[in-house]
């Protein structure tokens, strides 16, 4: 009897907790859960209860409610953009017609850019403003893919592993090499803006949205495997140093850790040492950044570890004019490219990433994948 009662209490408790989580989101749990657990729940479930059925933000919700101080960085878990001082604002307050899903946004033309030779970038003109945007999100893949032989080799290794485990010749998707869309809204119209767009990794297309009257002096694309821009006036010069170029130049991008970062939460000696090393790397990067652009990277950074919109310049009040969203669909894209470049769905049969991987693997196996089998039946 007592056991049954305890069981019912436990089940009821779980149901109440789930219902509360679904109804009001994770925030109320922050008071009762340890901070690490609260952050984990929040980073997992996101802003449940802050969005209505139609996806709109509920009245009373603040942009900060959607920003999670997570173990891997600051995470935008809702419709927010990073702005000056890395403060969150609602995307709808700065951008009209924002399109989250860009997988079907095929550009009209793609032009190839090349990284600069050497390590020295053109400095900004006196009086211009530096807009330093950081992009790390991987939630908005475009239908553009670029990869090289090393990426194909990784795909072959994955294909072989799968075949050995399952005995099925399943195509390996090339999703990992898709360009991610990252939107940059420039609202500063007072002086020319010198944009430094820092790609934390992978392939990225920076989609530029200019307010009426905003002028761009120059774009610098830093880091990442490949980087490009969309909706940029062709007369605006672009300089690129990709991740491998930065490494060659001895430049290691590093940014201050957020308070909830796992390294700062840990007391392990190895992690404490890593934090100290990271602080040194941040200081070194700040010096290079200041010498190159006149501002420190840690002071100027706009952008989160997850999130795909950043605002350079003032944010108007909710009733003010918004910048119109410039779609990538039909736009001109300038980008660096790897050995292979694909527009998904528009490549000849057998020329896509998965087909290339399978053809190479089959060729290496002399046309007979059965040689991939390993293991004796004991």
């Amino acid at each position, binding site marked *: 009897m007592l056991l049954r009662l305890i069981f019912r209490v436990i089940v009821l408790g779980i149901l109440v907790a*789930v219902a509360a989580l*679904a*109804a009001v989101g994770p925030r109320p749990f922050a008071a009762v859960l340890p901070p690490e657990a609260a952050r984990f729940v929040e980073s997992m479930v996101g802003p*449940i209860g802050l969005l209505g*059925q139609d996806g709109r933000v509920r009245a009373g919700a603040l942009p900060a409610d959607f920003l999670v101080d997570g173990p891997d960085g600051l995470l935008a878990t809702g419709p927010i953009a990073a702005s000056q001082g890395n403060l969150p604002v609602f995307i709808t307050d700065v951008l009209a017609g924002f399109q989250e899903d860009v997988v079907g946004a095929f550009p009209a033309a793609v032009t190839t850019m090349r990284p600069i030779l050497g390590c020295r970038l053109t400095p900004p003109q006196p009086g211009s403003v530096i807009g330093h945007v950081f992009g790390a999100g991987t939630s908005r893949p475009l239908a553009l893919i670029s990869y*090289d*032989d*090393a990426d*194909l*080799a990784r795909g*072959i*290794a994955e294909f*072989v592993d799968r075949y050995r485990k*399952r*005995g099925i010749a399943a195509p390996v998707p090339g999703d990992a090499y898709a360009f991610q869309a990252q939107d940059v809204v420039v609202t500063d119209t007072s002086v020319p803006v010198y944009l430094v767009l820092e790609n934390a990794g992978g392939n990225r297309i920076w989609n530029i949205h200019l307010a009426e009257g905003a002028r761009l002096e120059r774009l610098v694309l830093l880091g990442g495997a490949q980087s490009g821009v969309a909706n940029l006036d062709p007369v605006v010069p672009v300089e690129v140093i990709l991740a491998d170029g930065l490494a060659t130049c001895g430049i290691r991008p590093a940014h201050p850790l957020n308070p909830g970062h796992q390294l700062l939460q840990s007391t392990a000696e190895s992690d404490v040492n890593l934090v100290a090393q990271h602080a040194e790397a941040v200081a070194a990067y700040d010096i290079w950044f200041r010498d190159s652009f006149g501002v420190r990277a840690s002071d100027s950074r706009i952008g989160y570890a997850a999130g795909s919109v950043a605002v350079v310049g003032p944010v108007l009040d909710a009733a003010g004019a918004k910048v119109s969203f410039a779609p990538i669909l039909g736009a001109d894209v300038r980008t660096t490219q790897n050995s292979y470049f694909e527009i998904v769905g528009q490549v000849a049969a057998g020329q896509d990433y998965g087909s290339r991987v399978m053809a*190479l*693997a089959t060729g*290496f*196996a*002399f046309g007979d994948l059965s*040689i*991939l*089998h*390993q*293991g*004796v*039946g*004991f």
Partner: protein
Amino acid sequence: MLRFVIGLGVLLMVLGFGAAGWQYWQGIAGADRPGATLPPVTEVWLGTATGTIVPAEVTAAFLQQDRLVPRRIATITHVAPLTDLLRDAEPLPAPAFLEVMADIRAPLLAEGFCPVLQDMIAEDCQIHSARVVAGSVDAQSGTAQFRIELAYRLKPDVADLPDLAEQVFGSLDVEIGVAPEVVPGNTAATALAAVVEAGLLACSADSAGYPCRIIGLTLDWAPAVPFQGVATVGWLSPLPDGVLAIPEIRTLPEG
């Protein structure tokens, strides 16, 4: 809210059924798939002269000569030129593909080792695995390191084993390190033969009992450097004087 609860329920169901289906599929596929690992089947326990129990997999490697068992393996790590993997004047692929090509074609390099074992000790020999060692491709020298595992059964040695309750198990790791010029031909195959020979020599020593069997081999070979090898031999010998056989331990009947 209602959608969320229903969605969560459906998601959990999909996950649950998916996991169950996956396990079921794995079970079916695993039964037919070469390389599926089943636990060694042995109900016999061997003891050592010091009174310890021999691990079941070692016992299986020594006794079960009617089948291949996971512990009776010849492990050969050797450095080979990548051109050995090519056919018909085929060129080497681009450097980025060398490792995956070597991994896929590694079984080709394993083909020469089973005949060595079959000539000397093995009734049956099969390639259990043949892989390139990750990160070992040297594009400059055009070589890579390969790890090959052969499972083998020994040729029949005795018609009937002695009463195992009256025997103890002994084993020895025979280690050899040989300069390349000592081994005729100086190939990985001849080095493997030398390791097997060392094991056979250990078995013929007075200190070894009978039957004496090679229950494991390892070889680490590279051209122009001394190779290292280990032959693990095991044997049976009569219980030492004054030691009694342990009676079979049975569980008590219920109640």
